[in-house]
């Protein structure tokens, strides 16, 4: 089982390298908009964001449990996967419903980098939702960086609560 996964990862890695090197001339400074979709791993897999939900769309927060992350990591941990799977199940069943994955960080480090790290966390969750079969166009990412902590302490207990991705459904 374990070795199978490693083989998969290795194969994916090779595909990435081949695709990136093959694309390089085209991408670097070509002036083209748009990405090199489908070449650098699962979370980059043909996955441009759809349009943002309308500002008047109904948003429902708090229906699902946040996913928590390790310090300075955007990896969806094994222990957190069931939370994402529950969201995937719900969205796949409900028609016309999309999800905003909202990434957050703890208070440490540069504000601008944390905004990007929060986005990476949202992107990591989005990638996992996509592997579970959720249509990429129905998943928005949003980062609040370290600007919206849920716990205000200056210790690991608070930080761990703040390193999270929240799910907001929209219709």
């Amino acid at each position, binding site marked *: 089982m374990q070795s199978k996964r490693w083989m998969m990862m290795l194969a994916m890695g090779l595909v990435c390298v081949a695709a990136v090197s093959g694309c390089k001339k085209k991408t670097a400074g070509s002036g083209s908009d748009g990405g090199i979709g489908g070449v650098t791993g699962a979370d980059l897999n043909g996955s*441009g964001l759809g349009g943002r939900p309308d500002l008047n769309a109904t948003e429902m927060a708090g229906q699902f449990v946040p996913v928590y992350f390790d310090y*300075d990591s955007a990896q969806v941990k094994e222990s957190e996967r069931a939370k994402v799977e529950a969201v995937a199940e719900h969205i796949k069943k409900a028609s016309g419903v999309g999800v905003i994955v909202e990434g957050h960080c703890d208070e440490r480090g540069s504000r601008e*980098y944390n905004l990007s790290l929060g986005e990476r966390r949202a992107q990591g969750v989005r990638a996992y939702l996509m592997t579970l079969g959720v249509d990429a166009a129905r998943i928005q990412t949003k980062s609040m960086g370290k600007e919206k902590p849920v716990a205000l302490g200056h210790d690991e207990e608070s930080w761990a609560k703040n390193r999270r991705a929240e799910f907001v459904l929209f219709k």
Partner: protein
Amino acid sequence: MGKFWRDGRGHRPRLQKESSACSAAVAGFVEAGSNTPPRRQIGFFQGLEKGVGGFSKAWKIALVLLLAVLPASAQVRVVKGGSAKATIDWSRLVAGGAATEFKRVLEDDLIHSGWFTPAAPGGAEFSLVGSAQESGALNATIQFASVTQRQWLLSKQYTAEGGAARRLAHKVADEILAAIGRKGMFSGRIVMIGTRSGAKELYVSDMDGGNLSQITSDHNICLGPHWAPDGNRITYTAFLKRYPDVYLIDLASRSRRVVASYPGMNSGGAVSPDGGMVALILSKEGYQALYVRALGGGVPMRLTDGSRAALASPCWSPDGSHIVYVSDQASTAHPQLYMISRSGGAPRRLTSRGSQNVAPCWGANGLIAYASLQGRFQICVMDPNTLDSKMITPGDADYEDPSWASDGRHIVCSRTAGYRSRIYLLDTLGDPPVALSEVSGDWYSPSVTAK
């Protein structure tokens, strides 16, 4: 460039005390103006050499050895020795009434410039004589002279509207500095984020922290304000439509327009030195990348390859040919500085020391200031040609978000201690950090414009 960290052999600043009479003020000095030989602008490198050049190599080595054996408390005192300064006598600069603010701001500027220290009449190398009165308008007469060279360097009358005393003082300070061949910074301004109102809003102040005015009243999250090179407009990231978008705000009219509002994250918002382009970090394709686009609109051109990295904080080189930015592509835990051509190609990694290197600011002097996590965040200055870098903060707090002042010598940054953030002025020549904000609330993410 490579000369930056070398032992300078530049000539020693004029520190010799002349006992010759300057009590007779500046009478008999040659009037400046066209008789004054053109003064070479002394850039940062020469300036630095000039500043530290007084120390011989042997002395420096001795200093290093001394530091190695001294207890920590003593080290601080030695390091805080500060830069070489010329003495100035301003005892005959008189101001009455509302004009006292002019005098106070001017004197503070000259001290903060790092090139002067006040001295009593009789021993000073420079003399600043003049008067300032305010009656409706502010009228000031300024005569600045080199006592040692027996020469007028500046003799001028100034008028400013009432209430403009501070701005006029900054202008005079910069002209006095120009008269001794130094570039001033006091005509510049700082944009920063402040929490005084309870929400995060943009504020603009003078270079000394005075003249603080609130720019936004959005009751929203805002990040990373940066000046457009014209000094009239500011880009920043805000969540006005629930997502992080980049806005451009015009200071005079306070009008605001969207620069980038693509799906996902929009940040960066660094306007190119020619004012035509904007560098952005976007995630519209499902991954983060660095883009450039015409500031007015159009299709963003992606410069970096797709990768599973977090990218942030783009900043243009002074000639607009390159962009330095933050990426954690090597390891998620460790954002580092990278540099890429404005037309794309392979990025070059610039930093390796420190577990995080963030918030680059590429100065007009060619040097990149950035925050490096070495226990705490400290401000470092790097020569991107040699990758030599030097820490310029004392390690007693977290120093972040550096922005070069226009004199090429000082850096404005935020300093956080005890979970309180304030704006500080740092000196790359060794004078101790100076607090610029005394107002309650947190103050951070400063960015400096020369105008």
